[in-house]
């Protein structure tokens, strides 16, 4: 995860962190011209969301525009919509070796995401699928960063809040709150954030 984005989230002073705030941070970093988020009629049993990053020339002979389009299923809870958005935003900052942009890579990624993880395959496609899965952890870290985590642990220890209350404040699916509050989480995030991302972000 790029250092500049992490630095911005270290300074978070209130919750919940809105998706639009995350988007603004990414655009401020300067790695993307436009980030559009569309909520569409997508069967969440098949596909909950996706990121489509492309470049095009909106005006003939004009400048090329870099666009990130995130599409999210409308048939999910608000918390799940937020998490899917955050996870896909992580991919906006993918480094070159993490990006999926050839026909073979696209189809290979779909195959790997739907199939069982192999312990013997170390191909680029496997790496992209692994990065895709790790993005969920990073997405959670964007919505529930360290400062918010510290606050949650304090509230829980003091008996002022329960897990459900924390989820309600952070606005993430409740089933992930305990995982983020696990004592292993900071070390996991440290390791994940070291994985290749754009050096200029």
């Amino acid at each position, binding site marked *: 995860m790029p250092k500049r984005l992490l630095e911005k989230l270290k300074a978070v*002073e*209130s*919750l*919940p962190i*809105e*998706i*639009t705030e995350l*988007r603004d941070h990414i655009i401020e970093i300067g790695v993307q011209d436009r980030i559009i*988020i*569309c*909520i*569409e*009629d*997508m069967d*969440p*049993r*098949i*596909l*909950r*969301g*996706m*990121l*489509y*990053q*492309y*470049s*095009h020339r909106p005006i003939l002979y004009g400048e090329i525009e870099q666009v990130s*389009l995130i*599409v*999210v*299923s409308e048939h999910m809870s*608000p918390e799940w*919509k*937020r998490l*899917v*958005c955050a*996870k*896909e935003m992580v*991919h906006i900052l*993918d480094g070159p070796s*993490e*990006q*999926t*942009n050839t*026909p073979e890579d*696209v*189809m290979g*990624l*779909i*195959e790997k*995401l*739907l199939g069982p993880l192999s312990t013997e395959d170390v191909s680029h496609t496997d790496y992209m699928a692994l990065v*895709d899965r790790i*993005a*969920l952890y990073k997405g959670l870290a964007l919505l529930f960063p360290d*400062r*918010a985590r510290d*606050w949650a642990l304090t509230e829980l220890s003091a008996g002022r809040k329960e897990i459900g209350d924390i989820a309600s*404040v952070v*606005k993430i699916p409740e089933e992930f709150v305990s995982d983020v509050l696990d004592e292993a989480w900071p070390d996991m995030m440290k390791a994940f954030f070291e994985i290749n991302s754009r050096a200029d972000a």
Partner: protein
Amino acid sequence: MSGREVLRSFLFDEGKELKNIKFFPGTGRGITQDQMAFEAAKALKKAFSNGLIDSPPETGVDKINLA
């Protein structure tokens, strides 16, 4: 056309250069590659035909200070 062919056609034949694509698979069991690819293509086409209406989810709640 299979779902994968529909997605491939959308991503590579329509005048835009693909930089990166990622997926968040669904909750169902036994989802096939063609099903997921078709759903992805369908959603993308719908988003474009609707004019790429930007509608990020907003909580609408008052913020709580962490201080």
